[in-house]
């Protein structure tokens, strides 16, 4: 695995693992309650007590970053899990059935692919109201074609291979062949494509939060912190927006690198 990823890949994986670990351990590691205002620290600069200063309400920025990773990272992961499951199912059905089914599914995916993810999120948020569920559903629909299109072409190729004919001749059903033979062979491609898409999903989720349609205050969230940090920056305390923005960029870069390395192998 280490050799497959190469140096930068391993670095990216370690970075992501560290961020996830810190997030999970936030209750133990965070120096302050992330939601507790402290007027003495409002718009405070970096001090020994508050390494990244405080936000407009004086909440500790470092603690909020630690807790904020939860929604910032969990929502994209949910998006990609749903999109991968739906995309893989559609892809295999289309590739297996071929003909009209394939044509209909493929065109449908093309249509979905042509609409930016944020637009879908806006639509579902408009229906379900602002909040994480609406964003996740909208983005999951938007990301389905990212996975489906690539997996479909791989499944099409895999389907023509002799071992599928051999399983067929053994009297296995189409469902069994798809689940037990095609899926394991497609797994590397599905994983690589999903991880690449995860990078984009992090940006989209953060963007929707930034617009105020995703995570609602006072919950900590990186996208939201960039937004509220902008106001603080105007008032002379840029640390909140900078640190949150930097973390988003770092996570996206690491995820993309990982996806790229995984994709090269398959």
């Amino acid at each position, binding site marked *: 695995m280490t050799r497959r990823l190469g140096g930068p890949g391993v670095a990216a994986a370690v970075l992501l693992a560290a961020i996830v670990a810190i997030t999970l351990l936030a209750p133990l590691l965070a120096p302050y309650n992330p939601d507790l205002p402290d007027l003495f620290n409002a718009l405070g600069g970096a001090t020994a007590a508050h390494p990244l200063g405080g936000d407009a309400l004086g909440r500790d920025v470092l603690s909020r970053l630690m807790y904020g990773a939860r929604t910032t990272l969990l929502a994209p992961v949910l998006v990609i899990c749903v999109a991968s499951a739906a995309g893989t199912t559609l892809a295999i059905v289309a590739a297996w059935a071929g003909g009209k089914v394939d044509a209909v599914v493929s065109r449908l995916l093309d249509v979905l692919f042509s609409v930016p993810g944020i637009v879908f999120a806006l639509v579902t948020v408009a229906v379900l109201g602002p909040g994480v569920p609406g964003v996740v559903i909208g983005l999951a629909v938007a990301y389905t074609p990212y996975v489906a299109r690539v997996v479909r072409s791989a499944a099409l190729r895999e389907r023509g291979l002799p*071992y599928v004919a051999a*399983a067929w*001749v053994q009297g*296995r059903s189409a469902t069994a062949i798809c689940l037990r033979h095609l899926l394991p062979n497609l797994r590397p491609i599905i994983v690589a494509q999903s991880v690449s898409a995860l990078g984009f999903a992090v940006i989209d989720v953060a963007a929707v939060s930034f617009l105020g349609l995703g995570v609602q205050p006072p919950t900590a969230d990186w996208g939201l912190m960039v937004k509220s940090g902008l106001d603080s920056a105007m008032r002379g305390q840029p640390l909140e927006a900078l640190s949150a923005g930097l973390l988003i960029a770092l996570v996206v870069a690491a995820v993309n690198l990982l996806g790229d390395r995984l994709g090269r192998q398959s």
Partner: protein
Amino acid sequence: MSLLTLEGFGLAVPYGRGRRTLVEQVDLTIGRGEAVGLVGESGSGKSMTARAVIGLTPPGARVTGRIVFDGAEVPSGRALRRLRAERIAMIFQDPRAHINPVRSVGDFLTEAMIHNLGTPVRQASARAVRLLKEVGIGDGERRLRQYPHELSGGLLQRVMIASVLAVEPDLVLADEPTTALDVTSQSEVMAILDELRRERGMAMLLITHDLELAAATCDRLAVMYAGRIVEDIDGEPRHPYTRGLMRSRPSLEEAVHRLPVIPGRPVAAFEAGEGCAFGPRCDLAEPRCRETRPPFVRGVACLRAEETA
């Protein structure tokens, strides 16, 4: 009673707007426990014929004639699946391509037993080990945990044979089972296949281009050329094509400077003209050979078979 009968079997695949005939007018019978060899060059339609028996035809192919298995025409859909699962099995030319690379040998061997025959997992594994022993693979437990890339081609083909034995079918379709193997393992694999087949009374249709191999293992031989059966070999070959094939193989007994060859190249069924498909390459061809297809009479499709016999 015969187990498998092909009557006037033909197969055409879509090509451009029309169709191209790959196999036509094939009559073939295999009795219970009997081994029949189907011999021919690449493109003669022998593989197509075997694959059609279990419904493995190319997309859009049109099958004509009848394929009767054990008294009933080969069905489609669910019934065909049952037939494949329990009564007819196939051994493929290239075992490496026909065994799923990401699943272990054990998965491959037990899959049919567990899902088609309802054998409990533990019993299926034990049976797989016994079957591996029968095909000459001793350390079965270890092999079951290995993946196809860890085994040689010869071993994999034995695994494939074991998987066929696992369901004890009535008929084995062996599509060039030894072609992808190196010469030393060829004869071993073929001997194992033939022995185990006989023990269990399974019938076999052996597809090969190796006349000698077919003659050594099969009860009867049929020779295909350009999508038709040109001869059912019974004793001495009579069709000029078969005779040409016999002459063109090296012999251990006598040394020849240069092996005789059949001039020209083999044609596919759709390329053959009005007359005898082999006519253009035949040194015995007469004008009448170009006019009509020679009928299949007394085991041979040649107008001049009587004179040359």
